[in-house]
């Protein structure tokens, strides 16, 4: 199709789709006036039933924990998929690997800036752990904390260079953390079968609402997710980084 024909087809169709969407959305409750039975029920029972004060985390890791299992494995699959798609090709194998001895630094950064970057790593790790562990209490949880943890390692790269980052996070170890996190979530679920009779059913004491160790299996699941997510993002980034640093010699 010529670009004109394509655009014409699309614009005509998009007008129709806009009308249809408007027709469908007109049937939604007015903005702000929604009262879904499911949500109201969860809001009422979550603290009493689960001793978790953040209802969103409770839904994610408990009431609808299976969705999150699926979500973790989507992330896991994308990491495996990326490793497959960006693997070393037969035609690339002949050349020296990524200038082994060379340090790739954040170009144009002064020494002071690099030091500053490295100084930020510590607080970021602390923040990541905080967000991970307080998922059941306040906004945040394994996913957000996990990305922050991975970001801390990214700062190491910016400040210290590629090899420092690789030294700090040996590839195998990160891979194990990633796969282990994903499997760990599943295993905690299996623990539910063994100890409580249903997959992902809570089998720990709930503790006191508002305390760090409370809400049953939620903190455990959150930690598994954190391991999986930080591993996954480190692997995703380092795959792209490897690509960017390979100097092609065809």
């Amino acid at each position, binding site marked *: 199709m010529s670009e004109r024909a394509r655009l014409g087809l699309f614009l005509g169709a998009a007008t129709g789709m806009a009308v249809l969407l408007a027709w469908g*959305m007109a049937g939604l409750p*007015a903005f*702000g006036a*929604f009262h879904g039975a499911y949500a109201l029920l969860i809001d009422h029972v979550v603290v009493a039933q689960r001793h978790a004060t953040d*209802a*969103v985390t409770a839904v994610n890791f408990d009431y609808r924990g299976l969705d999150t299992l699926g979500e973790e494995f989507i992330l896991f699959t*994308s990491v495996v*998929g990326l490793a497959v*798609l960006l693997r070393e090709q037969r035609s690339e194998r002949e050349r020296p690997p990524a200038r082994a001895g060379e340090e790739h630094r954040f170009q144009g950064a002064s020494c002071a800036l690099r030091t500053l970057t490295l100084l930020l790593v510590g607080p970021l790790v602390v923040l990541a752990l905080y967000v991970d562990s307080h998922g059941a209490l306040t906004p945040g949880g394994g996913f957000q904390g996990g990305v922050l943890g991975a970001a801390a390692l990214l700062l190491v790269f910016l400040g210290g260079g590629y090899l420092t980052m690789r030294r700090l996070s040996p590839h195998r170890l990160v891979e194990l953390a990633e796969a282990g996190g994903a499997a760990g979530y599943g295993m905690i679920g299996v623990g539910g079968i063994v100890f409580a009779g249903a997959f992902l059913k809570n089998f720990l004491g709930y503790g006191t609402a508002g305390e760090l160790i409370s809400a049953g299996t939620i903190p455990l699941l959150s930690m598994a997710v954190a391991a999986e997510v930080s591993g996954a993002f480190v692997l995703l980034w380092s795959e792209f980084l490897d690509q960017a640093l390979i100097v092609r010699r065809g």
Partner: protein
Amino acid sequence: MSALAYGTAGWLFLVGLYGIVTSRNLIHMVICLTVVQSSTYVLLLSIGYRSGAAAPVFADIPPGSRAVDPIVQALTLTDVVVEATVVALMLALAVQAHKRFGTLDPNELTPLRG
């Protein structure tokens, strides 16, 4: 306000599609796809919003008080993760496509025709 909220969601879906249809660069196309996806976040959260209600975090407010819908928020969280993974896979494909074809223009990637 309803029209604005839901309309924004519909608008983002269509604008993102427009970007995909007219895109001449795979990376541009992937980013337009995230705009389409962001329309689903906006729609979900707009549906779950309740006027004058607090966030569903009962650390700051007493349990059982009026809060917005936590379910749609959990769904959106899942959706956000899906976005990151889809972007990662498609960028990898784009990188490899550039290696093979020397271009990112989808109009010029042509081994598959007919």
